């Protein structure tokens, strides 16, 4: 309710500042299932814009309802009638694939705060496309690397049967050196995992790796905890972010997950981000919020150096990534995706609140498997 009012107020403020010099179009998911992710990205992004103190940046925010067709309509409207210079905000890879290639070919810059499909990292990379979060495979590769470190020899791996799910298992297997006790594709949106848990029990695995974003992960973890199977679980941060953990509760305690960000990464930018985000919105930030925050700060840093109308200079300014990231030092690889350290986190409880703490490094200065294919 409170965030809703603030969003309305923010939108109203933006609408009235007609004098803005730079126009940013944000298309993100603000309603329906998965709205929590878009709201976090938006709130993190707007917090950074507000803290920059610049009143010449106008942000137009629209809700894609997680539907590709609506995202395409919104993007057309933003490019053709709103005439935005920069676009951002998309959460889901299938929506990004529908919007980004067309947008960057119309000379709009696109800064991705989340989705990082492999198609845009390799052969399909573009000079106007920058990903501030990660390439989709990254956190899964980190989980595979962690499994080696933890000396797991026989993993049971599981993901929904759709492109990002298949990429997830590919990413895990790319780094993981052990054998597979089982490999299962679930249905996208599946809510009951009794059948899979029975297979895990019978498989003789020594570890379970799963990628089940959003509500799917909540269901799986609760059911897994209740099943009496006690094989250790590893996952990417998506099933253990701040928005979801409270709904999972005790069932997530102690689980190791991989993330490029956590609230205890020790640098002044991150400490200030966590504190001001909490003061502004009354909740702890998630990794999505940190990605939105970093995206906006990257944008502001580039605007300090060049105007988007001078595309080459602005692109160079973005590529330099000369801003204070919540992740510490931030650098882009040749395909405009981050080269970054990915951590292993453990779910802990602080008072009544479930959250994560960093317990180790899974992959240091990691790029992605597609960078070599990118010719820009």
């Amino acid at each position, binding site marked *: 309710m409170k965030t809703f009012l603030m969003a309305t107020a923010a939108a109203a403020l933006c609408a009235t500042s007609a004098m803005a010099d730079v126009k940013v179009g944000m298309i993100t998911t603000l309603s329906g299932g998965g709205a929590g992710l878009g709201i976090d990205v938006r709130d993190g992004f707007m917090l950074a814009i507000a803290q920059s103190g610049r009143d010449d940046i106008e942000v137009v925010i629209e809700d894609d309802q997680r539907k590709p067709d609506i995202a395409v309509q919104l993007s057309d409207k933003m490019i053709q009638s709103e005439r935005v210079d920069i676009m951002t905000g998309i959460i889901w890879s299938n929506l990004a694939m529908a919007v980004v290639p067309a947008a960057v070919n119309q000379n709009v810059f696109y800064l991705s705060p989340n989705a990082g499909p492999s198609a845009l990292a390799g052969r399909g990379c573009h000079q106007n496309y920058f990903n501030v979060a990660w390439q989709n495979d990254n956190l899964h590769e980190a989980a595979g690397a962690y499994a080696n470190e933890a000396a797991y020899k026989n993993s049971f791996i599981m993901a929904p049967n759709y492109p990002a799910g298949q990429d997830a298992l590919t990413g895990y297997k790319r780094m993981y050196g052990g054998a*597979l006790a089982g490999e*299962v594709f679930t*249905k996208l949106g599946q*809510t009951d995992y009794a059948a899979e848990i029975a297979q895990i*029990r*019978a498989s003789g695995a020594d570890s379970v790796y799963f990628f089940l974003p959003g509500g799917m992960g909540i269901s799986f973890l*609760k059911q897994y905890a209740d099943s009496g199977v006690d094989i250790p679980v590893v996952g990417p941060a998506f099933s253990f972010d701040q928005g979801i953990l409270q709904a999972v509760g005790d069932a997530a305690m102690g689980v190791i997950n991989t993330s490029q960000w956590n609230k205890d990464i020790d640098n002044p930018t991150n400490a200030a981000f966590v504190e001001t985000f909490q003061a502004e919105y009354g909740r702890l930030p998630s990794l999505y919020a940190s990605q939105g925050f970093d995206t906006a700060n990257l944008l502001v840093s580039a605007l300090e150096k060049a105007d988007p109308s001078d595309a080459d200079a602005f692109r160079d300014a973005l590529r330099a990534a000369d801003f204070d990231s919540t992740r510490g030092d931030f650098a882009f690889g040749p395909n405009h995706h981050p080269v970054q350290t990915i951590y292993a986190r453990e779910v802990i409880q602080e008072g009544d609140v479930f959250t994560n703490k960093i317990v180790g490094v899974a992959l240091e200065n990691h790029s992605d498997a597609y960078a070599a294919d990118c010719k820009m």
Partner: protein
Amino acid sequence: MSTILVIEQILNGLQFGVMLFLMAAGLTLIFGVMGLINLAHGSLYMVGAFSAAAVAGLTGSFFLGLIAALAAAALAGALIEMVVIRRLYKAAHLDQVLATFALILIFSEGTRWIFGSFPLFLDIPDMLSGPVTLPGGIQYPLYRLTLIVIGLVVAIGLWALIERTRLGIQIRAGENDREMIAALGVDISKLYTIVFALGAALAGLAGGLVGAIQSVQVGMGEPVLILAFVVIVIGGIGSIRGAFIGALLVGLTDTLGGVFLPELFKLFMETGAAQKSGSAIASMGIYILMGIVLVWRPTGLFGARA
């Protein structure tokens, strides 16, 4: 593949089936008695889950939460029947679909407005948590066994209500000839409100029960709604017995198909590809079942009307 695993998967299928029955029973009752297609039935399931999570969170008692789920869903059902649905009985099915679809949007955004966009927490009560060991050494979660028992008890209760009580006689009469029972002095609009609230309460109960093992979030009702429609089409629209048999068939087909088809494909494919194609075909399983049933019996297994 061991016998234990097979038995465990059959139990999983049964548990899924009886929960589907709770959803499908209300849906089929409402269609049978009032001739109304209620797309908002999934929203009532969501109302149940959210009420259970909110009350359980406040009081710390799962059982109070379940009572709240029943009450809130029944209340919401009675309310939308009196305010919206009542105007639709004479309307075409397309108008009903449009209006009840609007209700889905109103319920979803209304719930988000009250509870926010992040999923709520609802957990299994301590006394029902953890696995129990069944004869034969099968470890099975106690809560899922409880769900099977509750589902069967509700099914028997519903059968007794329809077959053995005065209200049941009126409901059955209403299905056959609504003008005639109105002429006999039964307050038909009150009967409709009661039937609608009863259907809603069953959906709310399912929402509260299932919410404890799944995620309580906006939009959780729609995937279940689609399955419930498949169930009532298979069982025969308007038939409670059909809904029961249909729900068990769908539950078992979906669960066992998802496990055994990939295993079957592994016999002649390599593992990764077998998983991918096996699970893709398994997810079509219930629709293939529906197709076969409809070819064999166009009105469903126990459907009376054409």
